[in-house]
């Protein structure tokens, strides 16, 4: 048996090497993914900057030309990808945190742009600003509600922020609207709401605020 011990050791080394290779491959792909997400975020940033500049240049006369809906879809897609990455590599991964901050800033800029646009062009729109934390029980369910609303009402803009993200722009927003440390929390058209809200609760609030065309595209079957 003694002459066989080297075989056991070699096997161990080979197995360890296989594992290390698998780990490095996994890391390599995860890095590629975060790079891709960052590139997408960069692109959106440029698009946002372009829209803002357009708005600055044209002011009121830009009201017919500005179409924010494409940007909204891109932002949502970015958010989904970021969520997936977070679930794969963990929420303490530094790259993920950076991308979340980047994404949050883009959302805030879009929010501001849409608010200004709405004021200047007198358009009817509803934005829901949603705050969550990673350990809040109702937040997952709240996520389902918001996804459903997003799909059903194309005129609705939703923005989600991790309350604990430690981003100065976000802190400003939080203190400006006095968002308390109880999740989930909402700003629906700048009015503060607290606690879990079902689809019916939110629909009651936003339906009167939405432009009429938005509701006809939605077919809803309410679950009692």
């Amino acid at each position, binding site marked *: 048996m003694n002459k066989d011990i080297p075989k056991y050791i070699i096997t161990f080394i080979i*197995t360890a090497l296989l594992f290390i290779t698998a780990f490095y491959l996994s890391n390599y792909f995860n890095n590629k993914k975060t790079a891709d997400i960052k590139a997408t975020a960069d692109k959106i940033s440029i698009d946002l900057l372009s829209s803002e500049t357009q708005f600055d240049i044209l002011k009121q006369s830009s009201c017919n030309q500005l179409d924010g809906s494409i940007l909204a879809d891109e932002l949502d897609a970015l958010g989904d990808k970021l969520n997936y990455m977070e679930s794969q590599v963990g929420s303490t991964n530094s790259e993920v945190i950076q991308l979340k901050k980047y994404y949050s800033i883009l959302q805030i800029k879009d929010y501001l742009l849409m608010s200004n646009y709405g004021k200047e062009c007198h358009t009817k729109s509803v934005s829901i600003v949603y705050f969550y934390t990673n350990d809040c029980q109702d937040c997952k369910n709240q996520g389902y*509600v918001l996804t459903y609303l997003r799909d059903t009402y194309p005129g609705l803009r939703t923005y989600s922020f991790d309350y604990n993200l430690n981003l100065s722009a976000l802190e400003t927003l939080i203190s400006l609207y006095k968002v308390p440390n109880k999740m989930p929390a909402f700003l629906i058209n700048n009015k503060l709401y607290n606690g879990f809200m079902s*689809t019916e609760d939110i629909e009651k609030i936003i339906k009167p605020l939405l432009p009429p065309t938005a509701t006809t595209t939605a077919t809803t079957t309410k679950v009692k």
Partner: protein
Amino acid sequence: MEYPSFQSILIYSSLFLATYFEVFLIMTLLGNSKKLRLENTSMDDEPTSFPTATIVVPCFNEESTVDGTIDSLLSMNYPRDKFNVIIVDDGSTDKTWQYIQKYANNPQIEIYKKENGGKYTALNYGIQQSKADLIGCLDADSYVDKDTLRRIVRYFTDPKVMAVTPAIKIFKPKSIIQYLQYIEYQLGIMIKKLFSYLNAIHVTPGPFTIFRRSIFEKIGLFRHAHNTEDMEMAMRMQINHLKIENCHKAFVYTVGPSTLKTLYKQRVRWTHGFLENTIDYKSILFKKEYGHIAFFTLPFSVVSLMSVISVVCLTIWSIFKSIYDFIIRIIIVGFHPHFHFDLSFIYINTRTSIFVGIVLFSMTMILLLNGRKISEEKMLSKEILYFLIIYPLIAPLWIIKSVYNTIFSKKTSWR
């Protein structure tokens, strides 16, 4: 730094052990490739001598199935004056005894009847009636090739070899369950071969393992051994340092259970028997004098069962969790599937475990395809897919039941 969860520790340790096991086997394959090639080329050489051999065929309510078995035995390419068949009726309650009378006048066949006592008692009875140098057994629903005994006998030229195990295949598979076993047995042929190179065989299968008569005098006859007397005999031989070889081209065909229920019963018996026998022979474990069976075969076989159970539990738990989440979601927003057609490569799962899984899969395929090669099957067939997909789903069923039986000391039944 996030600490790994209990689940990931469990999964990664299981993956590590499985990978270790297969790397070890593949290294054994590579290290013995020359020896294997030599065995293949000399497989049909004329044996230097033809020792006398007896094949015991135990019957219990077998009636007509025994015909095919006896015919295949009598058709073997072995000198007629050097081998005989002993049929033992183990107290059948049907017309088996009357049926086998037709063999009474055959000079190569002896028939006996005894009171029912279980398969191992029929084997022992037949062994005691025999005077041959080599003894083997064949179940009444199994068949041999013409060359099976001839090829096995060559391995006995080495006086140290005390038993030779055959290469078992499933006979004419028809149902999907039988096809699963068909592929599984081919993987088994490779693994048995590799175990023989490690001198770490832990089962001397009932169907046509040939023993030297002297071992029964040395270490005794078959025992009840939790209805798995073939495993117990192998372990007894190992603990007595008796050499067990394998002839991978000595084909024996056995009819596999055709339904999930009968397969389940058979496998619970085998796995439970394995665990109980291992417990009985636990003194072998991790003792240097016994070599690879003590450090490789037995430990890994036991640990693999535990891994399977824990991985299955984890999987079931996460499936239930997903279903629960799904139901909650429906309660909250109704049935509105959120279709997300984003074919970004980002959504492909690239966790480390996926890559390790790919490595494991490749190694299993290497072993399986080599097993098919040495047992003269064509390399690829669609049944391999059935095996790869369905087998991992049903094997946990009997594994869990066997371990449960062992822990709570329940007895298994033969049929």
